[in-house]
């Protein structure tokens, strides 16, 4: 095998009106069991686990891909995933 191709993945994502996206991921600390699956699946590692509880990066909107994988893997359903406000967020030109 060769070394993986050197690619700056973060630079390959476009967004519009990132400041108007709103708070579209919320989580309930009570329900969180600290398993860390949300961070495992996240492309840009926007979650972390501290003292047995997940934490979401405060400015996650700047990097989040809006894929919702963190919501889907959350066994105790502590994560609530909605979408950014209409007309804001990720723009996919070559999807």
């Amino acid at each position, binding site marked *: *095998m*060769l*070394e*993986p*191709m050197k*690619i700056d*993945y973060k630079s*390959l*994502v*476009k967004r*519009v009106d990132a400041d108007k996206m709103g708070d579209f991921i919320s989580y309930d600390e009570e329900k969180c069991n600290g398993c860390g*699956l949300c961070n*495992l*699946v*996240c*492309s840009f*590692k926007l979650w972390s686990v501290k003292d047995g509880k997940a934490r979401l990066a405060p400015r996650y909107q700047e990097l989040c*891909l*809006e*894929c*919702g*994988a963190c*919501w*889907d*893997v*959350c066994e105790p*359903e502590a994560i609530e*995933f*909605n*979408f*950014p*406000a*209409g*007309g804001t*967020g*990720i*723009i*996919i*030109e*070559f*999807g």
Partner: protein
Amino acid sequence: MEKWDVVVVGGGPGGSYAAKTTAEQGLKTVFFERGRKPGEKNSSGCGLGQRYWRDFPDVMEAVTKMPSFRKCEMVYINLIDEDGRLRYRSGTNGSDLCAARIDGNHGMDGANVYRKDLDPYLAGLATDAGAELRTSVLVNDVIMEDGRVAGVKTDKGDSIQADLVIAADGAISTMAKKSGMRNRWEGGNTLCAQLDFSCDEQKMDDVLGKSNWVWFGALAGAYQVNFRDGFHLGCGTWLDENWDTDAIELVRRVTRFPAFQAMCRAVDAKPREYQAHTLPWLRKPPKTHMAGMMLVGDAAGFPCPLEGEGIWHALMSGRAAAETAAWALSKGDVSERALDEYDKRWKATDLGKEHEFGQEFVDLWYNSIFDPDSMVEQMQLLLEFSMLHPFSIVFDWSDAHMDCFNQHLDHLLELAPQFSDFGSKFIAPMARGIWPSNVKRILSLVKPRVPILRNLSDEAFFKVVSKLSKGLAPFLNPAAKQDAPLPRGSLK
């Protein structure tokens, strides 16, 4: 409060086709898209199969004229071993017979286009038919009345009433969640990472031609969909207990293949865009409707259980839901029981036929290439199998040809116990899909070779075989349908 006959949530392929169809049926229809225009919030492999020419010929005609269009006549499969060596490359192939399966000789004519070309075109069909499109609007809640969905709410603060809601809002369906139909997919959802590359168009024509590619390696796999001047590398697997990494790592593993890097050099490929999305890949679509609402496309869990394609499935289900809407509203009954008609309709199409084998198709993948534990073993098996095809025998010059053949056969027989276990568990169950007419034809080839059977009539011969084999009996029952398990045809 604003009131419509039908509110469609989502301006992707499923939503637009549903809105087009309800508008054509004379229903007052509005559809909502959260992007600034349809297509800018969507990512997918976006390879459109030949069957569009049968089921949606006008769409396909338009697709061939879109800026990102590349024709796809073949899929090349590349198998990479643990050391990164390209060990096998083969293409799906076709013949004039394959081409003739679809009117106009389109049976080999697949197409690839980016969603930024496809989705606005499909939305245009809906607005041309009289549906109203509202963009940059996120539908974020349902209005419930007496246990039925009676409308939607938007992030602009509007409440909109509807006699029927068609939810085409994707894998993470807000409508399904808010109405209480479903929350998470619980193991049935996959996560796909897609890396798009720009390429030199002429070099793509020369090197890749009219093809898509698939890459399989130990603990790594990807589809490569080739567009006019770029391609997607898409990698994904189920979000379940086998998941061991983040989405980007799936892509990185494939970019380590020397043959992949060589292909990139040959077409001047440069990374252009990174995307991630989830895709439900289910053994069986769950509940598709409730009083006042039907789900279509990804929201309903319709993507193909064998290869995960979902756009054709979105169009088919969007059309079936829209026709059901017209039927239900003409009767004035949108109860859950009335909307059972939706299931009847989509199941009667080729979409239903595809899902009839959902369990078998998903089990096969889940336990082979997508199972980290058995992936390496399965690769070995595939590689040994590939050594036995005629060209391997002809061009293996390490020994006398008959000895080469026997050595390959020997390797394969070594692996036979492992294969027979896998085969009986995950391949044999699919045999129920073989057409009875084909089973009879195969048996008829055997009959003349066996002296005591030779003089029996076909009818008597099949009776004897039915008595001897429980497995074959259902195929030979005179009442068995002679072609496909479900009647062919689609809602037109």
